[in-house]
């Protein structure tokens, strides 16, 4: 061991390590003993972690630690607590009437939050994550409802669906006037143009409005009404508004009249619990179009 004390730096008066690089010397500044001891203690502490907590990966698992701690179990406990808290609130939701839920800000917030997540899991594949719908799948944000837009009507549609096969489901469908030979092709073209004229859309040159009105009154008015305003009892859409489930162009209308339409909304009763269905009804109603 070199006796460093003999090598004193003339400027600072401190001993050096004796190492010199390009004329620059390293002062001998030993660490404080407590620092070194603390450093070793942290190493010992780290070994403690290996023993107490899950630490070492094994081939198909890992060491579990002395007390079997698991962060997954922690999460399970937290989730269970959350379920318990939610459970009480969901009971309150299930007990309240739909109208009362909309009047109570706390229940409304809960129903909207619950409805939104459940909607994302169950309804979004058809209706879209924002409930904006797609061709053949209604937009639930607007004020046009096939089966009615009151809270009770929305809830009924969610519960039992439309053409779902459930005993209480909404029935009624658009017949295939062309495929079944009820109307001839030129009659279909005429009535399609007549339907367009109900909404103020342009019509084909030489379109005979009187003939269209006659065909409509004989074949369509039973469901869609004399004025084409639709009938929510039968799920017959209003043909005079600006919203078209399948499209308002002539070709689509001809297709609709020829082939018929019978989109299916599944029944959710039995698949979702009543409180959840209520939450969903409130959520859909609160999207903006609810009556």
């Amino acid at each position, binding site marked *: *061991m*070199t006796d*460093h004390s*003999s*090598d*004193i*730096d*003339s400027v600072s*008066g401190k001993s*050096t*390590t*004796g*190492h*010199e*690089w390009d004329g620059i*010397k390293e002062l*001998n500044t*030993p*660490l*404080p*003993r*407590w*620092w*070194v001891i603390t450093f070793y203690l942290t190493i010992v502490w780290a070994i403690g972690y290996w023993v107490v907590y899950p630490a070492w990966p094994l081939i198909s698992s890992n060491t579990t630690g002395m007390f079997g701690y698991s962060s997954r179990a922690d999460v399970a406990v937290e989730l269970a607590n959350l379920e318990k808290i939610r459970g009480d609130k969901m009971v309150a939701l299930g007990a309240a009437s739909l109208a009362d839920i*909309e*009047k109570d*800000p706390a229940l*409304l*917030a809960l129903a*909207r939050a619950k409805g939104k997540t459940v909607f994302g899991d169950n309804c979004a594949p058809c209706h*879209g*994550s*924002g*409930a*904006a719908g797609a061709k053949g799948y209604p*937009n639930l*944000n*607007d*004020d*046009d409802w096939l089966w009615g837009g009151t809270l009770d009507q929305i809830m009924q549609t969610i519960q039992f669906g439309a053409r779902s096969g459930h005993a209480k489901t909404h029935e009624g469908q658009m017949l295939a006037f062309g495929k079944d030979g009820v109307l001839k092709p030129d009659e279909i073209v005429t009535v399609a143009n007549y339907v367009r004229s109900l909404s103020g859309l342009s019509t084909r040159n030489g379109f005979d409005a009187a003939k269209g009105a006659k065909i409509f009154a004989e074949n369509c008015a039973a469901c869609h009404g004399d004025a084409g305003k639709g009938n929510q009892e039968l799920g017959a859409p*209003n043909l005079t*508004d*600006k*919203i078209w489930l399948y499209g308002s162009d002539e070709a689509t209308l001809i297709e609709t009249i020829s082939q018929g339409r019978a989109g299916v909304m599944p029944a959710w009763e039995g698949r979702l619990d009543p409180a959840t269905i209520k939450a969903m009804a409130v959520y859909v109603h*609160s*999207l*903006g*179009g609810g009556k």
Partner: protein
Amino acid sequence: MNKTVNPNELKPADDVGPLYAARKKVYPQSVSGTFRRIKWGLMAICLGVYYFLPFVRWNRGLGAPSQAVLIDLPNSRFYFFFIELWPQEVYYFTGLLIVAAVALFLMNSVGGRIWCGYLCPQTVWTDVFYAVERLIEGDRRERMKKDKSSDPLKLERISEIVLKHSIWLMIAWWTGGAWVLYFNDAPTLVKELVTFQGPMIAYIWIGILTATTYVLAGYMREQVCTYMCPWPRIQAALTDEWALNVTYRYDRGEKRTSVKKAAELRALGEQVGDCVDCYQCVAVCPTGIDIRNGPQMECIQCGLCIDACDNVMAKIGRPKRLIGYDNDINIHRRQEGKPPIYRIVRPRTVVYSAIIAGIGGFMIYMLATRSLLDVNVLHDRNPVAVKLSDGSIRNAYTVRLLNKSGYDRAIAIDVEGPVNPTMHVVGADSVTPDRPIIVIPRDSTSELRLLVTAPAENNPEKSIPVRFHVMDIGLGVAASATDNFVAP
């Protein structure tokens, strides 16, 4: 000349030096004087504020906390006398921290490590602990003797040690106790704590801070400043040649000699220094250094060596302030026979002061003019717009209203942008359908779903800016937020 070593000639054995050094325990001697009095005064103020501030009351009305300074974590509120801050206003703390940092720079450029020497909690609590130690175990020499003594422990000595640590722990416990009072209603929590009904987290924090206070002020002391704190290093980079630091005026002090010899030499008309090598400056130093070696990283500049030296100078009839707040420039000027100059006002102090005044003024302005009513608007993303059966366009917004005042507000919402808009707040049947009126409880926020509908006619086809005005219909206080109204 230094002995030089060629690195190539070093053998492995040469690297075996001590990896660590034992700490040299410091036994600061009691001292009296100007700076000691300043330190006592600042200590009383700092500790007084820290220990008693939680008990100061401030009336905010029924249902609101009555504690002047309170960090209410569960409710996310910070109360400071007449100020109440919400989490989204933490930027005030950013400003406060900037001002605090620049204030440290300013202190440093004016008078060196003023923070370290007088105000730092580590210094203040260590000072208290040293005072307790001196009171019970005696002054420097006695303590050194007692520590060195190899005599078997007598009852008197044991009782001294027990008493000292008991008082230390009591101070430490009170320190931890005061800390938790800033987070709860102080009188209530004190009642709960002494009846062992306080929340466990409070006891844990008291325990942690009792331990840190006891260890840092009772044992670690100057080691914290020398080895743990980054500030001394930063300050070394911040100082300049004009900053006043605690300085041994070697122009006056050297050569050091005894009182008697100095008198003899002076009688002979010879040049002789005022320093009589009494080591009083070393004896009182809480970091155990010799200020006469010049500016040192360990020096916290508490000024106690100034007091110690002044007392000696007074006794031997020499002028005071052989050690004083000074700088190298003046030492050289005096050596050249010129009068010293002190330059407090110089670019860096002016700039620091300007930054403090600027940011401080800006913060005060922002605080004084901030609105206690606020609104945030978020447009629905999916769908961005909805076409209704009559062809009109509807956009949905999530509107958050913030009422930061201590009373309920009735808020009217107006929209500006689309032509002939109608509004509807989901879940609220307003008596005035075209101008929804919503009640927000005091000190809270409300999130609303707001639908804005406008006919397709007269509204542009793409997107137009929309502005929401919210107004307290009772007081006329208003706020607004902008977003867009989009066509499908």
